[in-house]
């Protein structure tokens, strides 16, 4: 199965949320990473609408497949295998990718690997020049998920340490942006208006950070209370007739999110004696997340890895990269019977691997 040079050529298809992603890798080398996003269509609704996302996937799928081949400069006959996201994600959206990938596999005779989206985020890092050492802690944060993983082996042993028990961190950004009268998506907007704001101006609550949470929710996140606290603060200021100090509110809210995310991530590094932390997901675009992560990593002696943003947001290249790693490790293809699993656990790195 190994291509002539540098590992198997794998085409990866990703449709778990609002990005239609098709990527192509040769082993650990990125050949193409094409993304069609329906984000603009969701903007007027203030968040991702699953049916709108799924419809957009169907329209974008074939053009994105073709664009990826063009970008890689190869023919479909040069592909060794196909990988597709089976879950977790929005089920109607996932099904578009699953249906397309299965048909493409039968049409071309190429083996198919059904893989886990979250583990794919970790897999993106193998495409970087100096890729990850294991074990590592991985913090994956986006509009759809907020998960803290312990990755002992990318293709064999991934453990979920914690995740959000209510909103994803990205959602909290969207909701607070709305409170401040800012458009969707909220992350870049909060970043923009936080410039010059004092992150210590207002102390917003940090969810699940009390001593009593240290056991049961040691690595879990909660952003619902924070979001409500910001809304309440803004309303109170408005009721009192005060001008809302938008920069301070945004900076203080962002600081609370960043603080919780990174405190728990570095706590996981310390608890497990693992001096490596990988960040992934769209929230990595947030400048303050990167800044504070770098400071704390230096202070704690942790090696911090942040793949390029185009590989952090949802994309097909990370799915292809994980597929290539599975193949290289000797995994057999998935059967054709798997489905879209919106709650696929991270322990299922590959779905429906065929028996020997």
């Amino acid at each position, binding site marked *: 199965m190994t291509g002539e040079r540098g590992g198997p050529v794998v085409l990866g298809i990703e449709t778990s949320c609002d990005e239609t992603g098709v990527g192509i890798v040769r082993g650990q080398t990125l050949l193409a990473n094409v993304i069609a996003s329906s984000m603009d269509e969701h903007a007027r609704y203030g968040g991702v609408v699953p049916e709108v996302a799924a419809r957009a996937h169907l329209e974008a799928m*074939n053009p994105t497949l073709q664009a990826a081949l063009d970008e890689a400069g190869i023919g*479909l006959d040069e592909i060794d295998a196909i990988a597709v996201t089976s879950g977790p994600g929005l089920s109607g959206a996932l099904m578009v990718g699953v249906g397309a990938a299965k048909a493409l596999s*039968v049409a071309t005779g190429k083996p198919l690997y059904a893989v886990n989206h979250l583990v794919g985020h970790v897999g993106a890092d193998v495409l970087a020049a100096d890729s990850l050492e294991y074990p590592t802690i991985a913090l994956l944060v986006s509009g759809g998920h907020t998960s803290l993983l312990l990755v002992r082996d990318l293709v064999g042993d991934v453990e979920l340490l914690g995740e959000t028990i209510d909103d994803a961190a990205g959602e909290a950004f969207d909701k607070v942006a709305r409170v401040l009268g800012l458009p969707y998506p909220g992350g870049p907007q909060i970043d923009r208006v936080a410039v010059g704001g004092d992150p210590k101006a207002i102390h917003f609550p940090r969810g699940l950070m009390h001593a009593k949470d240290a056991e049961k929710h040691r690595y879990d996140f909660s952003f619902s209370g924070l979001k409500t606290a910001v809304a309440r603060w803004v309303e109170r200021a408005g009721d009192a007739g005060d001008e809302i100090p938008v920069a301070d509110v945004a900076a203080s809210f962002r600081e609370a999110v960043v603080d919780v995310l990174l405190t728990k991530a570095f706590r996981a590094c310390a608890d497990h004696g693992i001096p490596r932390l990988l960040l992934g997901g769209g929230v990595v675009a947030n400048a303050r997340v990167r800044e504070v992560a770098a400071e704390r990593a230096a202070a704690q002696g942790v090696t911090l890895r942040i793949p390029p943003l185009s590989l952090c947001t949802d994309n097909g290249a990370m799915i292809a990269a994980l597929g290539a790693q599975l193949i290289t490790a000797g995994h057999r293809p998935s059967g054709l019977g798997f489905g879209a699993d919106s709650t696929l656990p991270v322990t299922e790195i590959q779905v429906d691997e065929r028996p020997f």
Partner: protein
Amino acid sequence: MFLAIDTSAGTSVAVVEGELVLSERSTEDTMRHAEVIGDMISGALDDAGVPASGIDAVVAGMGPGPFTGLRVGIAAARAFAWGIGVPVIPVVSHDAVALEEWAAGTRGDLLVVTDARRREVYWSSYGLDDRMPARTDGPGLCKPDELPYPEFLRVDATQVSAGDLGRAARMHLDLGIPEEFTEALYLRSPDVTMPGARKRVSQ
């Protein structure tokens, strides 16, 4: 040689050569389109003894049908066609039902009705003469008691046969009738609620 795929109701996949249905695999299960689609395509090709490279076009049932399942078949049809470099022929799924009636000898006006869930139905009307079944109106969406053409012979279909879909595509091609709809026939807007004025969190 056509590969035909329809997921507007259950899942149905067929290999059709001219008038002949060489193989057809179908299930009425309306909850497992994504799970079964791959094995059914592969199985239909095996049953017909036709390799993927022997397919000249892929016929896609464009609905109307419930969104989530409908998309699986269209995505599969398009990806299969792209994978072997052949065109997609998009066919209204109800055309397959009308063709089945026509082939069984029915002539005159026909109303094809399928379940749209949420207490609504999809419909299309046809005129069946000796030459062919021709769609005259629709597809449309309405409440069952608001169906048009009450005087027409009504067929309530619970399954769409990919074999008949492929044969309908062949007939349209032979008679020079262009396919009218190239995009999925959802006939419903996505369920979205526009954000209204933000509600206060404090009293």
